[in-house]
């Protein structure tokens, strides 16, 4: 529990939070999001997150930006042209949020430059191919050697930091990092090989 003066500060800030929250809810309630729009928004979540992560490789920051982007996309539901390219539109909004974030935290955090945001292409994160990639990834994950599976589980499922994993498996951070590097390369290589077969099976 925080000291009481911090609680009062939180309460003070919280009144603003409540107003903002209620405004957001009111907007959403008054202008219900069409089902088709909602479906499109859901379908691009993974690729949108991957795009954001490519430019803000800190997962906490990427999740914050994803939330902000989704908020804007929901508020702008009425502005969307159904004949337009939804993913491109969503990615543009995400890019603006990312660049604003980079500018805001330029001095306090290390990150990529704005130029990279201009260079990363939307088509590199095509949501339509993610289902195939996901299935291939699952196959490849099962083929990982056993000693790699435990490290992978600790990092990807249990979201442990390298420091935590290093303590748990009693290995230096450097060797854990090296193993994760090999896991990622192995999976990427395997997925690349499996995709044609998975595509063929999905077409059948």
């Amino acid at each position, binding site marked *: 529990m925080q000291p009481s003066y911090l609680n009062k500060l939180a309460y003070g800030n919280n009144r603003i939070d409540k107003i903002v929250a209620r405004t957001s809810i009111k907007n959403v309630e008054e202008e219900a999001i069409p089902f088709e729009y909602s479906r499109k928004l859901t379908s691009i979540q993974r690729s949108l997150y991957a795009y954001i992560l490519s430019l803000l490789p800190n997962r906490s920051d990427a999740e914050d930006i994803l939330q902000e982007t989704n908020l804007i996309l929901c508020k702008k539901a009425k502005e969307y042209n159904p004949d337009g390219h939804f993913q491109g539109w969503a990615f543009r909004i995400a890019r603006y949020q990312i660049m604003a974030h980079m500018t805001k935290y330029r001095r306090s955090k290390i990150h990529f430059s704005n130029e990279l945001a201009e260079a990363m292409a939307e088509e590199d994160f095509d949501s339509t191919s993610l289902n195939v990639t*996901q299935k291939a990834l699952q196959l490849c994950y099962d083929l990982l050697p056993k000693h790699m599976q435990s490290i992978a589980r600790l990092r990807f499922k249990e979201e442990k930091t390298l420091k935590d994993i290093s303590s748990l498996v009693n290995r230096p951070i450097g060797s854990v990092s090296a193993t994760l590097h090999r896991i990622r390369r192995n999976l990427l290589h395997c997925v690349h090989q499996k995709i044609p077969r998975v595509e063929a099976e999905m077409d059948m």
Partner: protein
Amino acid sequence: MKKYDSFEELDQLTSKTLDEIATASDLKRLEELITSSKSMRKRYASLVTQESLLHWETGRVVDFEEETVPKRKIINFPIFASAAAAIVALVSAWGFSKQSPYGGNTQQISSNNSEIKQFASMGFGEDKEPNFQPLPFTIESTTFSDSRNQSIAVSAIELLESGKSFDDEAIVQIDNDFTTWDRTEHLTVPAENGILPLDGAGMIKLSDMVVNVDTQTASVQETLQVVDIRGLSPLLSSKIDAEISLNKGATAYPQSTEFELSVEALKGEVGEDKQSMGSTSNALIADTDQATWENLTSSFVVPEGTDFLVVSVTARIEGPESLLPNPSGNYADSLRVHFSTSAR
């Protein structure tokens, strides 16, 4: 060869970046590589996409064993457990000991050792014993929806069995016939996300939800209290009444959150696996008004022979909206657990 070497450097720097151990010069070099050619950019995008799938798709890609869990039924005054649709939990890598946690089970630890020895043979240093701490026992119950929460309950029971009166993660209260391990204080937060505590200056915040893309569910379960009633006279029958208030933070898009309060009775020898003797649960769908708290109660006639009672709360979202981020939080307050006894 040069292309492969360049990919090697790109892959290494990307891996360091994704593990958040890259330096400023690493990031600068990585950016140079990414922007140097289309193939480099695509390679980087592929690695990041893979990473996002590995973290996001926790229900499918990463688990090794899949269980088909029957759909959850909501029943108001049940005696026995109800099934819950939830994320598949993987705990096998930690192993289980059939003996006292203070003696350990060398056979179980050996199987983990072989894993580490194989890892060590890849040339990462001297052959040291692993620092795994396997769970001392399991809880055989369908009420626990994830391994994290089951680990918490196991730790609580292990502490109560040890007779310790303190814990870093909870408060231990000793009454005449029973001892309560209470975690609510450690989950307490002040007002946030548009929610004011119902009672006092703090409220319980549940951990972040975990998403299962395949079943389109997002859920979190928190063990709040574990009551040790082994000291209760067998001549007495007992009943537990639990009550809790629930609320959820504001979201920008509609999300229907279901809360469930459950009480489970467990039995088992010290250091041994625990079996469920029965459970009760009660659920409601939360409204979107942060100004109001909703109340859930659950009453349970404790089965004879019960050793521990576990009080937990679950928050769950089902359907496509479960895939959208839910940073607003789920909250509980005013947990009241009343334990009463009477002669049989």
